[in-house]
């Protein structure tokens, strides 16, 4: 398979949320999301309840994928930062460690410069955590250990999902 399976553990999840909460304060942002490049939401902090987070994650990933396609067409590896300016709210989207997407939503109480500066620092920290996670996943794959939390799953379990 092209990439190792993404598995999130309690320890790293907490660290990630700490970094995101700090970034939320330091960048004066309204809400911050972390999204897998495949469109799965990893975590969100701030006023998350105001947004349809699942759709947001999916569209962000689609957006990054589409601009990534554009980048390749003009001979770039990727566009690592996207910025969308609205009337009130703005989106700063950046790729972290080549694997995940950091989305920062902010308004006039902050500024693009501040967000960029703070995101840069947090990105490095987040990157390190995802490297650890990736290593864990690769280790397990090498040892042939499955991370599927219910190895004894039965047909009935699956059928009950659809009943």
């Amino acid at each position, binding site marked *: *398979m*092209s*990439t*190792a*399976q*993404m*598995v*999130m*553990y*309690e320890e790293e*999840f*907490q660290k990630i949320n700490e970094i995101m909460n700090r970034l939320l304060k330091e960048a004066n942002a309204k809400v911050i999301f972390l999204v*897998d*490049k*495949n*469109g*799965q939401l*990893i975590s969100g902090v701030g006023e998350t309840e105001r947004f*349809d987070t*699942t*759709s947001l994650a*999916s*569209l962000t990933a*689609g957006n990054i*994928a*589409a601009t*990534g*396609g554009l980048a390749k067409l003009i001979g770039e590896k990727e566009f690592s930062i996207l910025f969308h300016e609205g009337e009130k709210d703005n989106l700063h989207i950046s790729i972290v460690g080549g694997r995940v997407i950091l989305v920062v939503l902010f308004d006039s109480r902050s500024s693009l410069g501040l967000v960029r500066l703070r995101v840069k620092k947090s990105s490095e920290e987040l990157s390190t955590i995802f490297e650890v996670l990736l290593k864990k996943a690769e280790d397990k794959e090498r040892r*042939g*250990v*499955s*991370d*599927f*939390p*219910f*190895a004894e*799953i039965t*047909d009935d*379990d*699956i*059928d*009950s*999902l*659809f009943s």
Partner: protein
Amino acid sequence: MSFINYASREINCKIVYYGPGLCGKTTNLQYIYQKTAPDAKGKMISLATETERTLFFDFLPLALGEIRGFKTRFHLYTVPGQVFYDASRKLILKGVDGVVFVADSQEERTDANCESLDNLRGNLQEQGYDLDKLPYVVQYNKRDLNNILSIEELRRDVNPTNVPEFEACATTGEGVFETLKAVAKLILMDLKKGR
């Protein structure tokens, strides 16, 4: 690639509906959306043209329930079927866990079916996937129409590897959930094996 989150006890999987233009991929998702309880589904997103042709993708998140304490979520995507949207199709296949190939049963769509299937295989290969190793099912859609091929003929064209196959009429919903259930089952069983 599926995403397992031990912290929030969730498993997320990505299913892609593939097939030629106008074969009924979006209609499959629309039916699933209509028939799913409000608390089990998110908003359906369609990035479509003004004439309701899929431009980038349709997206439908489903949270079907829990298995052994883990919330099991499926993210359903369709690709744009029209030939010239190939660059977009490649993007949507990224991180796929399972594929549904929706074939158009009408006789005159035989070439379009075969071309789309070749395209699927090629685009997967480009990203390091092998269709024969992925959870994969085939749906023969539009069985309610008159000018359709027999199942044997369709099988010969689009299901030479004999994966699970389903007859469907996506507009009335016949076969839609059977198809989804089959691919979901293959994905979970595949995860269980620990790829």
